[in-house]
């Protein structure tokens, strides 16, 4: 059976500002490009799927695991199969890049869903982070901080990958590597990848969701 993310009757508002009122959608394995103007709810949708925000109604289902309104924080089974790569740098400026990678990879390993060391090492090399591993994130460039999260995102064998503006602040080589890896993942069909981007990501997109339309 094909891996499918189902979003049903999603309702969410920031105070009196409604972003989703009964949003329903399905995304199969591959890349779904979430589009929309600023403030249309792209990042909020990813945060809801990551379990950072709680929907007022409705929920999500992926590979038999359900999560949604009423659940306090994302259930562990949901978190294990999801990785949220926010558009902000990691909120741990005191950690070195290696420590941040180790902590996040370790927290998935502790939950039985860790990234193989070889996969992590490969992503670190491909994204040009090897010489910066011992640099505290507070001294790293914005690009290096973004690459730290992307290295984990691309190394973890999660079923749902949430990428918020992943191409922002990346150098040309890293952008190319990211696009190439996402293309490979899309062809393998083992992950549902939700990607927000204001510009064409130049990857084979299976579906497009236009929010606020």
């Amino acid at each position: 059976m094909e891996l499918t993310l189902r979003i049903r009757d999603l309702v969410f508002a920031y105070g009196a500002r409604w972003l989703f009122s009964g949003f329903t959608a399905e995304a199969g394995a591959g890349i779904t490009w979430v589009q929309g103007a600023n403030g249309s709810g792209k990042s909020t949708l990813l945060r809801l799927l990551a379990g950072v925000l709680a929907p007022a109604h409705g929920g999500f289902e992926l590979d038999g695991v359900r999560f949604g309104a009423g659940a306090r924080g994302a259930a562990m089974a949901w978190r294990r199969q999801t990785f949220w790569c926010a558009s902000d740098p990691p909120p741990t400026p005191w950690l070195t890049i290696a420590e941040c990678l180790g902590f996040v990879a370790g927290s998935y390993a502790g939950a039985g869903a860790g990234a193989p060391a070889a996969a992590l090492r490969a992503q670190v090399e491909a994204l040009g982070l090897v010489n910066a591993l011992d640099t505290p994130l507070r001294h790293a460039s914005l690009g290096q901080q973004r690459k730290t999260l992307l290295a984990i995102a691309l190394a973890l064998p999660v079923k749902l990958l949430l990428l918020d503006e992943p191409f922002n602040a990346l150098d040309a080589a890293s952008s190319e590597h990211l696009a190439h890896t996402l293309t490979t993942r899309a062809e393998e069909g083992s992950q549902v990848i939700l990607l927000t981007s204001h510009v064409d990501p130049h990857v084979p997109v299976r579906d497009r969701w236009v929010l606020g339309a």
Partner: protein
Amino acid sequence: MRLFARPPRFRPLKTTLAAARLERTREVLHELLRSLKQALPILVGVAGPIFIASLALLAWAGVPPMLAVTLPWQRGLALWLAQVLAAAWPLWALRGRLLPEPWCVQLRCLPFGRAALWISDLAVSAAVLAPLAGLYALSVLAFAIHGPAWFVAVWPAALGSLALSWISSCVLGAAALAWQRRGVAARARRAHRAPAPEALLAARPGLWRALLWSPWWRGATSPTGASVAAGLLVALAIALAWTRGAWPFVPGAAWALVLAALLVALTERVQRALESHLATLEDWLAALPAAGTWRLQARALACVPMVGGGAIAVALVLASRPWRPGPLAGYAIALLAAPVALVSVPAANREAHVGLWAVSVGLLTALGSELWN
């Protein structure tokens, strides 16, 4: 029609390093006063008599350096140095705010000479310690009016000792600021000694180490772990002086009060720092399959200074003169219960917290003053 009734006022540009740093110092001290002002009305209401008594104690601020000249030189020097260190402590505690890391980096990049940097450190140190100079002047005035025999006999030397003590505190405070300035270079040097990538990537720091422990020792919290450790050392010194009866002229209740106030203040500071630190991580942690016990772990960490410092104090009481078991058991229980009660209430609830401080300090002082009676 005129758009502005009067033209906007501009502050003149600060053109010297010392002036710019004094402006920053003024902002930091204002910020500090504002946070104190929030708690003051409740403090006065709950602990009014103690507060008024402590105002009278202000006249004693300058006594240790003046009294030091009447003591045998070893004890006199120890007392004098203790006062110098205690007076310089605010500079150490505030160094991160007086000289934030971006300032340190800029100071290394701009063409300032060593003398200008030291002069600016000294100016900031003197500005922060200026209120202490006022308190010392108040002490001198009070003792000159009352004219106790010991003071009349040694007053020129006592005044010299007091002035030298303040100057030494200023120099020590300036050294703390200089240390903060130079720390940037040391931290950068450490960052260059990188182990092999394999070793770095093999490490899997857990939640406790990565998010709760490391930030204290890497300047990500205010106060830092080193400041909390220094506070605990001071608590240890107070507990030693109290339980050994080192200075019989200081009543036991005063030692118990100071120790309790210090431990409660440390718990409060650690809790506030942890809460603001974790607020930035909450979203991230909600999305990671990390252990869900991080809130509980953070609360346990906030209790560590008071439980640790309290355990040492109880051990010192047990090893001291014959003590009374009832009050000691109550004292130990209060030392455990107070931090648990404090960390159970969010630090943002200022009213409840100040009430808890007052009750905790009052209870610990009452029980502590009964340990040997």
